[in-house]
């Protein structure tokens, strides 16, 4: 499950409340039906927080062992290190790890207690491409074992790759809660552009399902959820077009349009 939102949306606050690290000003949070501060609830959760640190002078193995010891049924240290892909660094001190390796160390610490649910707050921030790939692989491996993972991110792409369910929030408000496919279909999916042999006007598109239409002399740009049907209709009308391009709208754009929709709802 991914908690998706732009900076300042309230993702970290939400996780902090769920973990009992912050008190909710209204309403209540429950973990496994218990207070989030309850030890029994915490024994079943692993956590990776933003900007949290560990003593620089302990080695990867020592830290994983240590965090495992906080839990009643830890997973074998080797397995936690393996899941994080840190075997080559297991004897290195934490202070000597690169940024991406450090993040993977925090992942190892989060899974060390063999939890049922893991909370990741912006896990891939500051990771290089290779580290990020390894890390996303670790998350997939872990979820295959039937574990629940809740991660926050501001990359829709990341949420799309990993999550079965995406919750979009913005400025503390719920914007959407659906599968990645649904989230994507709810937003304008394709950008269509072409050059028409005869000048077109906006009136020509009045009956068609398009948005963000811009006509610059012969050049037409628009967004459509059903570009195939749109083009079929244009051809049927005998519009002669050239230089056709159909591209998937950027996921970031999709995300922006989604939060804007919510904003309009709020202002209405």
């Amino acid at each position, binding site marked *: 499950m991914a908690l998706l939102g732009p900076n300042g949306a309230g993702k970290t606050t939400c996780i902090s409340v769920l*973990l*009992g*690290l*912050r*008190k909710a000003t209204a309403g209540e949070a429950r973990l496994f039906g218990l207070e989030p501060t309850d*030890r029994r609830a*915490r*024994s079943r*959760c692993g*956590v990776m*927080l933003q*900007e*949290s*640190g*560990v*003593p620089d*002078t*302990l080695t990867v193995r*020592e*830290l994983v*062992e*240590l*965090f495992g*010891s*906080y*839990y*009643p049924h830890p997973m074998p240290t080797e397995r936690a290190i393996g899941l994080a892909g840190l075997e080559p660094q297991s004897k290195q*001190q934490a202070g000597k790890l690169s940024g991406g390796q450090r993040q993977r160390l925090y992942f190892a*610490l989060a899974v060390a*207690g063999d939890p049922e649910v893991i*909370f990741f707050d912006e896990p891939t921030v500051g990771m290089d491409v290779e580290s990020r790939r390894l890390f996303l692989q670790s998350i997939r491996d872990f979820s295959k074992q039937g574990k629940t993972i809740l991660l926050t991110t501001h990359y829709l792409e990341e949420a799309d790759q990993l999550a079965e369910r995406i919750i979009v929030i913005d400025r503390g408000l719920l914007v959407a809660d659906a599968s990645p496919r649904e989230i994507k279909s709810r937003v304008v999916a394709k950008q269509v552009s072409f050059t028409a042999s005869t000048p077109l006007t906006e009136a020509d598109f009045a009956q068609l399902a398009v948005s963000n239409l811009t006509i610059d002399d012969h050049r037409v740009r628009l967004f459509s959820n059903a570009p195939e049907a749109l083009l079929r209709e244009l051809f049927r009308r005998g519009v002669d077009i050239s230089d056709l391009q159909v591209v998937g709208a950027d996921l970031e754009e999709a995300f922006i349009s989604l939060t804007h929709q919510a904003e309009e709802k709020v202002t209405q």
Partner: protein
Amino acid sequence: METRAKFVARLRNPAFTVLSLGLPVMFFLLFDAIFGSLQAAPGVSTAKLILVSYATYGVGNVMVYNFGIGLANDRGRKLDLLQRATPLPPVVATVAYVIGALIFALLSLILLGLVATVIGGVRLDAGTWLDLTWRLMLGSFPAIGLGMAIGYGSSPNAAPALANMVYLPMLFLSGIFVPLRQLPSTIQHIGSVLPTYHYAQLAWKTIGLNDESTLVALAWLAGWSIVLFALTIRLYRLDQDKKFS
């Protein structure tokens, strides 16, 4: 587990190890070389006084710096936040931390003892060493309180400076660095209230150079512990409120 981790993490930090283990040994050797041959009292060499004084300084040192700088660093890098989200109860973490520091203090004492015996040629019999050890461990609680108060009350950058500014003058004012009788009487009065003064009294008893009885010294130290731990709890709550509300 938690104790061992805290202990190992500190031991591998060269700045901390040198400060806690090296300084008392260095000071001892320096002052022993200058004043060691004098008589502190009939039948007691100054070397013994210097040894016991720097043993006291050393153990207090471990406590003030270990907790002062260590806790401030843990807070600075948000280790406390990460640990808070695990099932480890904060009380267990704190107790583990104290045990780790006591072991470290013992290490500092053993090192100083070895250096004093082998290089300094200062002999204390085994009974005196044991007597000194329990006194220094039990009497170190105000130093733990002071360290924790500094650790929860200051940032990682401010903690070392604050620890020095508070702890070092206390040592000067209570007769550990300079014999109290050589200081002006006003300062003697101030000094005789400080926890370090009573800590030193507790330790000097082992070589018969104390001015107050063990019970009086322990009572003072217990009082200071209550004051400093109360301050620690207050600062801890403030810190928690800032972080978790």
